[in-house]
């Protein structure tokens, strides 16, 4: 099925019905990760390293084991030595050996908060009391917390077996740099050398946390026959199964993972921290074991997104044509490799058509928690530098910043760094809509300034399995393996009901455990409405074909004589011409004839298209304090087709808010000893309701031809533009270019004072 030319052709796509899981979530009935209770369950707690870098010489657990109520103790010695292999996750791969070492230190603690031992006991209080009785003999090692010291030739090494990939010749010495990656086209050096105007700058960002309100939690039960169960909230139950099986060295069929409701993930729940530990505690104790993080553990030991630095040089003609870009970034990956280097590199310039560019990325380790994906991982950091540079260029050339972007924007057919022609991309439409929006021409007040920035995210497809079954009363069940992290049940129900031409309420959506449905990749990469949605539509089409076949057989006509219309089969030929069999009538007859009505589709969805955003931000800077207030904000996005517009707008608004936090107030702070200074929501300052204005949204619907209803994926794009939009607004408000995030009041105030002097 091709995307319809007009969205008015839809009955349900584009409407805003109440989500099927809504009542449970406004009444407190929905069960999230920390809410699950298993019969006979006991409680675990984790001992964490107080040192950012230390060799574990010995662990004496005897006193802890002797405490009344303690049922099991686990240390790194209980983990089987894992082989190093990668498994495919939503927007990248996960390495099983590193995931194992991240769940529990094996030989060395690599960051403050790294798990060192775990205890299961009759209550959490007993388990935590027992932690105090564990004696760990640490040899404290020198630590590295910033890029320069981590890359120094005499830097203390986190791992002695990491040699920088992407260097020629291959280095002979181990280092803290797992990867250098370069992608290029044309001759940027020549373009820069001969340019009319050149802008350059160095930008810095702190690590930030995904900040989901639900801490990580799970319950695990692992029997002596090797079979186990895990109940947990995450972005992918199959991801939990694969990583846990890989870490523990058992078959995937022996682990059944039941997804609980997830209280926010944003990429941070695309890996595991607790499940193998809980499994081992359960195996030792013979009881189901609950493990849950406290908030300070979430900050110290999960996430964050990498901070780092980006250096950029941009060359342009007098008319604003960007002729060349050199961009080099270094991201702090934390304790293990994998700090989003590739997506950061490919996202940096993907919204522009630039003839000559080179992007070089470095993945740098430091003694901080291993970074995890965070909404468009890598893109906000590099795009911040690009969009700031374009703003500076616009000022220097005296060109409207939207016009400058329009001049260079990627258009369908353009060849980018990925060497493939762009498809139905909508960046130009977003820029034009931003320019036409009343916000762009509204007057500004005193101490106010306006910034604009664009951004892109590639989106993802991948593997999904869906079962659509029809009950004998004609109601329809859609079962997927994709956790609902923000309203996807509603989108699936809309797409199923649209395809079957029945009422939205006639369809219910369930998310199955890993033993009850075929493999589905995790919910990440903005893939679920696209890929799982495509499987839902194809499964509904298979059900329709089956029902038409059944009706045709009853009527004695061939398949072409029966067509599906308005939720029923209509007879087009023969003696029964114009007869109608409704879904309900056919369902009632199913078990007297051909049998149950159900279809299963497993697919690997291809044909992804990137999404684009343009954000406009007005800031007001208090000259007395340096405090930046967001006074007006508008987000424009190429969304493909908005299946349920409320949840598309919600993604745009939520992403904008997270980006505003990254720009203004969020960031990991470490003291000189490498310990995190702000591991709580009071000092790690995420935006609250009174920090923000309403966030206006403009959805540009340029459908993706590879999806039956034109879906592109919407969740990640909106965190890409805000860093630049806010920084450009502040830069224009105070007349000083902002290159360091977050723009906290003390930083802004110091700049104002320095400028005065």
């Amino acid at each position: 099925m091709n995307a319809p030319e007009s969205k008015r052709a839809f009955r349900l796509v584009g409407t805003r019905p109440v989500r099927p899981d809504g009542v449970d979530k406004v009444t407190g009935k929905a069960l999230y990760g920390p809410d699950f209770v298993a019969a006979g369950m006991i409680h675990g707690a984790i001992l964490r390293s107080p040192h950012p870098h230390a060799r574990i010489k010995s662990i004496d657990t005897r006193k802890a084991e002797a405490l009344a109520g303690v049922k099991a103790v686990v240390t790194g010695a209980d983990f089987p030595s894992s082989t190093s292999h990668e498994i495919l996750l939503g927007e990248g791969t996960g390495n099983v050996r590193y995931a194992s070492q991240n769940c529990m230190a094996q030989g060395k603690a690599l960051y403050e908060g790294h798990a060192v031992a775990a205890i299961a006991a009759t209550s959490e209080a007993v388990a935590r009391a027992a932690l105090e009785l564990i004696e760990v003999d640490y040899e404290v090692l020198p630590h590295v917390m910033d890029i320069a010291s981590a890359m120094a030739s005499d830097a203390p090494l986190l791992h002695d077996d990491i040699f920088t990939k992407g260097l020629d010749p291959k280095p002979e010495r181990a280092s803290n740099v797992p990867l250098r990656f370069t992608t290029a086209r044309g001759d940027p050096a020549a373009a820069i050398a001969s340019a009319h105007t050149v802008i350059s700058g160095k930008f810095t960002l702190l690590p930030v946390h995904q900040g989901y309100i639900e801490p990580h939690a799970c319950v695990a039960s692992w029997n002596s026959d090797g079979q186990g169960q895990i109940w947990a909230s995450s972005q992918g139950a199959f991801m939990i199964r694969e990583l846990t099986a890989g870490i523990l060295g058992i078959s995937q069929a022996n682990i059944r993972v039941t997804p609980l409701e997830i209280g926010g993930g944003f990429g941070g729940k695309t890996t595991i921290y607790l499940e193998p530990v809980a499994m081992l505690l359960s195996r030792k104790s013979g009881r189901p074991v609950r493990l849950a993080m406290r908030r300070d553990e979430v900050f110290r030991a999960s996430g964050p997104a990498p901070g780092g630095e980006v250096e950029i040089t941009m060359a342009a003609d007098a008319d604003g044509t960007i002729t060349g870009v050199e961009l080099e970034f270094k991201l702090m990956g934390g304790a293990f490799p994998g700090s989003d280097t590739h997506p950061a590199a490919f996202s940096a310039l993907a919204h522009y058509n630039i003839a000559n560019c080179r992007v070089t990325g470095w993945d740098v380790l430091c003694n901080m928690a291993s970074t995890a994906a965070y909404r468009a991982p890598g893109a906000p950091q590099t795009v911040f530098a690009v969009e700031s540079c374009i703003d500076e260029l616009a000022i220097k050339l005296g060109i409207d910043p939207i016009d400058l972007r329009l001049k260079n924007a990627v258009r369908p057919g353009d060849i980018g760094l990925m060497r493939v022609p762009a498809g139905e991309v909508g960046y130009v439409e977003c820029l034009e809509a931003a320019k036409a929006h009343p916000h762009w021409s509204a007057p500004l007040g005193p101490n106010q300034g306006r910034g604009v920035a664009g951004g892109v995210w590639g989106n993802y497809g991948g593997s999904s399995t869906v079962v659509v079954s029809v009950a004998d009363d004609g109601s329809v069940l859609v079962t997927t393996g994709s956790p609902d992290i923000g309203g996807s049940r509603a989108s699936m129900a809309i797409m199923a009901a649209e395809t079957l031409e029945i009422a939205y309420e006639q369809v219910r959506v369930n998310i199955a455990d890993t033993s009850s449905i075929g493999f589905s990749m995790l919910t990440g990469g903005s893939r679920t409405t696209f890929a799982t949605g495509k499987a839902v539509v194809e499964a509904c089409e298979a059900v329709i074909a089956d029902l038409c076949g059944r009706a045709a057989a009853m009527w004695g006509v061939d398949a072409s004589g029966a067509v599906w219309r308005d939720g029923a089969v209509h007879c087009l030929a023969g003696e029964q011409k114009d007869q109608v069999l409704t879904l309900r009538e056919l369902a009632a007859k199913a078990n007297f004839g051909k049998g149950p009505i159900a279809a299963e589709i497993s697919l690997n969805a291809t044909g992804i298209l990137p999404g684009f955003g343009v954000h406009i931000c007005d800031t007001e800077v208090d000259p007395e304090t340096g405090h930046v207030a967001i006074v007006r904000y508008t987000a424009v996005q190429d969304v493909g087709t908005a299946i349920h517009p409320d949840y598309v707008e919600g993604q745009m608004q939520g992403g904008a808010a997270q980006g505003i936090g990254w720009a203004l107030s969020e960031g990991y702070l470490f003291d000189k000893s490498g310990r995190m200074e702000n591991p709580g929501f009071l000092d790690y300052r995420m935006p609250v309701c009174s920090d923000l204005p309403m966030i206006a949204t403009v959805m540009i619907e340029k459908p993706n031809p590879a999806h039956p209803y034109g879906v592109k994926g919407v969740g990640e794009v909106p965190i890409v533009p805000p860093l630049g939009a806010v920084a450009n607004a502040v830069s224009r408000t105070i007349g000083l270019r902002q290159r360091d995030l977050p723009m906290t009041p003390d930083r802004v105030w110091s700049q104002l004072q320095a400028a005065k002097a």
Partner: protein
Amino acid sequence: MTRMLISATINGDACDFLADPADTLLDALRDELGLTGSKEGCGSGDCGACTVMMDGDMVCSCLVLAAEAEGRVISTIEGVADGSQLHPIQRKFLELGALQCGFCTPGFIVATKALLDRNPDPSESEVRYWLAGNLCRCTGYDKIVHAVLDAAAEMRQDHQSRRMPA
């Protein structure tokens, strides 16, 4: 550790439960009484996911000891709906898509009810400052604020129509 016997009125029902002296009211609600609608996001009073009412005051139940509940009247998210009839605030959150993951939602709904019980006609600014103690990471607050203002308007209208003579 000797456990204490606590008696309180919870969502209109008399309840007796046991608690350790160090347990919080949130621990007691979730672990002893099975009322897991109140969530623990931080344990330090910064996120508001555990918001409940105690003798008419809005409190973070993670900052109240279980023992302090003795003799008090507590209401939680589980007591907001009238039986199976959703409260207008709950209905507006659903109708306007004011939740994504839903984890912070119970705290927001309890806090919103406390606001509208006090101030039936709040401005946008009053809503934003009243809810500043409740963290939401998904929505950017836009649809939450709209839902609160809409619920307030509907409740004012209902209130007026109830007062009008038949």
